[in-house]
């Protein structure tokens, strides 16, 4: 019907709309965020950011068991949070269509691990659709919805960074009106008390047979030859560009489960096989199972040729394919160029930078000379970097409070738990309830910037629910808020809370309240003020650029500070940082400036 320039994630959203999507829910996480972001623009469908992936999953599932077409979106690690619901959804099946979209992040560009979620397909008995570029992502999404309604079972749509974040022209079709549900009451299917679950298990396995039969249509056998390359996901794109001549290719649009008949057809007359897939040997293992059962002795290469670590690249696939086909592979020597690293950094104007500076000074003033900073997932995870060094652990959403508990129980050190507002609602609530319930002496610092900032300023529940009220409601006795740009107030509140925790052996919650700088910039129009350095007063002490590290502050002659005119947003956070009062703000603030920062 037309051609649009789309990001992989946008083409998934487009496919869902063409399939008749009615309800979508998700939790933001790179590289998945843009699916929900794109769907949000549609006014005739219901789309929400949920507090976490489990709630999002249940929302989509609830819609699908009433016959609606639904989608849930999250990153790979998000599926761990939703996995409890996921496993049961496969037992019951659905009435309408349910597509579970989960985006993986091989090489961990923006994640704590690179787990391969296709294992969830094997474990839960849910088929796994795997596109290789934005066009196939679009097409497979449409088909995934069709397949889900046909087999009355949820389906997983799994793709990785280079599909999600590739942009290209995509041929698209017509939008279909949303398919809503109607009230269906079938407790004999959906209420998983043991007697019902047992019956469901049998039916689930029957559906799995149907699914295994049905997946054939999503796979193709291309070319011919005595050598076969089996590939799924982005692996196909690399193989397609690298391979010419007498090679047979089995491209899997669905990588779990494999269809025995189709595999046997593909391997007919083949002498050697190479499996090219990103991360884990999911296809390889299934393939070997089938060949073994059939008594077919043919050499299968997979993870012995294609690395199991990190995303696929030309070099990795090229090396494997050359070895497999007996061709020379010209390796490019990577030059060693000496240049400084550039890790991600808190933005100019980011309130977290000030919070970390205040926090360090506040806890020491409050009498905690050594502590464990139990951290969490969000922009503020960057507090792990120097000069802040204020995240001693951070493993998953909501990890701060639970780990803090373990640290205290094992060492008697009073810990500091640092968590963002969105993460607090995602999975911090239960940890805080536990801290109250079990009397954990912990200083909880909630960095409330009103958004889920890391993934693109998605709205957060903190806009509707005050974190102070929640903490009080959960029984926390010491609760106070502060503005991290107000250094004196911040240090006072933090030190008071620290002392209170030590004396009372109970949790205290302090909330740093100031909006995400990027969100502020989105909301105000007009000229921004700018920081200026008085060269006469500046001593070149380096505090503002080496210890505060706003990216807009750079070094000039005689180590004196210089403000980058392009980067500075005029937030003023650096003004109180300079011990020599050399920094001041110049220019007027736009309308509504303070209100936006502090709202």
């Amino acid at each position, binding site marked *: 019907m037309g051609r649009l320039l789309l990001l992989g994630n946008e083409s998934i959203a487009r496919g869902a709309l063409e399939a008749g999507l009615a309800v979508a829910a998700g939790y933001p996480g790179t590289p998945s965020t843009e699916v929900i972001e794109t769907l949000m623009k549609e006014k005739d469908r219901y789309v929400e950011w949920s507090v976490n992936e489990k709630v999002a999953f249940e929302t989509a599932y609830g819609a699908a068991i009433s016959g609606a077409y639904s989608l849930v979106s999250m990153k790979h690690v998000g599926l761990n949070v939703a996995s409890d619901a996921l496993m049961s959804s496969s037992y019951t099946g659905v009435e309408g269509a349910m597509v579970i979209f989960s985006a993986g992040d091989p090489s961990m560009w923006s994640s704590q691990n690179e787990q391969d979620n296709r294992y969830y397909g094997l474990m839960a008995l849910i088929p796994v659709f795997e596109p290789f570029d934005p066009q196939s992502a679009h097409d497979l999404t449409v088909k995934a919805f069709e397949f889900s309604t046909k087999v009355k079972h949820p389906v997983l749509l799994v793709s990785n960074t280079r599909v999600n*974040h*590739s942009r290209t022209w995509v041929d698209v079709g017509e939008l279909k009106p949303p398919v809503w549900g109607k009230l269906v009451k079938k407790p004999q299917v959906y209420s998983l008390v043991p007697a019902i679950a047992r019956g469901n298990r049998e039916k689930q396995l029957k559906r799995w047979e149907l699914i295994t039969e049905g997946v054939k249509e999503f796979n193709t056998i291309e070319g011919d030859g005595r050598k076969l390359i089996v590939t799924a996901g982005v692996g196909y794109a690399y193989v397609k560009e690298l391979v010419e001549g007498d090679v047979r290719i089995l491209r899997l649009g669905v990588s779990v489960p494999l269809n025995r008949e189709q595999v046997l057809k593909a391997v007919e007359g083949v002498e050697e096989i190479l499996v090219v897939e990103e991360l884990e040997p999911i296809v390889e293992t299934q393939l070997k199972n089938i060949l073994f059962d059939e008594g077919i002795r043919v050499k299968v290469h997979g993870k012995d040729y294609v690395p199991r670590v990190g995303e696929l690249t030309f070099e990795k696939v090229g090396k494997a394919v050359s070895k497999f086909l007996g061709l020379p592979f010209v390796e490019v020597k*990577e030059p060693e160029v000496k240049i400084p690293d550039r890790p991600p*950094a808190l933005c100019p104007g980011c309130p977290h930078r000030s919070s970390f500076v205040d926090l360090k000074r506040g806890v020491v003033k409050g009498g905690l000379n050594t502590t464990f900073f139990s951290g969490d997932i969000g922009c503020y995870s960057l507090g792990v970097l120097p000069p802040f060094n204020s995240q001693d652990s951070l493993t998953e959403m909501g990890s701060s409070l639970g780990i803090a508990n373990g640290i205290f129980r094992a060492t008697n050190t009073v810990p500091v738990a640092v968590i963002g507002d969105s993460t607090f609602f995602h999975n911090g609530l239960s940890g805080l309830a536990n801290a109250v319930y079990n009397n954990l002496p912990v200083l909880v610092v909630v960095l409330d910037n009103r958004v889920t900032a*890391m993934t693109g300023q998605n709205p957060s529940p903190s806009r509707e629910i005050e974190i102070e009220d929640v903490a009080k409601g959960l029984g926390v006795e010491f609760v106070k808020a502060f503005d991290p740009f107000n250094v004196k107030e911040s240090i006072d509140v933090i030190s008071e809370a620290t002392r209170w925790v030590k004396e009372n052996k109970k949790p205290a919650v302090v909330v740093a309240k100031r909006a995400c700088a990027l969100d502020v910039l989105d909301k105000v129009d007009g000229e921004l003020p700018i920081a200026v350095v008085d060269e006469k007063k500046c001593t070149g002490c380096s505090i503002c650029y*080496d210890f505060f*590290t706003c990216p807009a502050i750079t070094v000039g002659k005689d180590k004196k500070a210089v403000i980058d005119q392009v980067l500075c947003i005029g937030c003023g956070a650096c003004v109180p940082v300079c011990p020599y009062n050399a920094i001041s703000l110049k220019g007027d603030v736009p309308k509504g400036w303070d209100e936006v920062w502090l709202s």
Partner: protein
Amino acid sequence: MAKLNIVIGGVGGQGVITMGKMLIRAVKPEYKAVASETHGLAQRGGAVNVHVRIGDVYAPLVPLGRADYVIGLEAIEGLRNIRYACDSCVLVLNNKVQRPAIPKVALPTIDELINTAKNYVKVVVLVNAEDLALKAGNVKAANTVIIGTMLAVGKLRDFVDEEVLVNSLNDVNRKALYLGMENYDIVFSK
């Protein structure tokens, strides 16, 4: 069939993604085009890059040693991606060195960076992209300035439709594009 590989390096927030988008939007209809982007955490002031591939391509990433252009929207980030450069590569550097936000970094100068680059590429082009963008009316148009320079030096012109490109731009960006086409220094050429 012909191929053009471009790797654009920059600092998160500089408009690296926007530049990739602008390029593939203007690709001649007979060519395929794909841009691979960096999103999420890495975008926050960190080193980011976008791979743009045009022509007979399937894979999202540029192979090492095969980029026809390496672009540094910030000079250090140009050098960080130098491993992608092919023998006839054109390196376009914005004349700007931005300090990574970490304590006590020793910053290379632009001349040091250019000297290193000479070993790996055929042509090094230097552009004062931000000055020119300001002259055009908005400092944010720096990436359009650089696209202008790319049209003037190297093979990009064979793959994009200049008219489509110009028509997709507003006045400021159009001015920036022309300023970039005319105001650059070839500081090295093999």
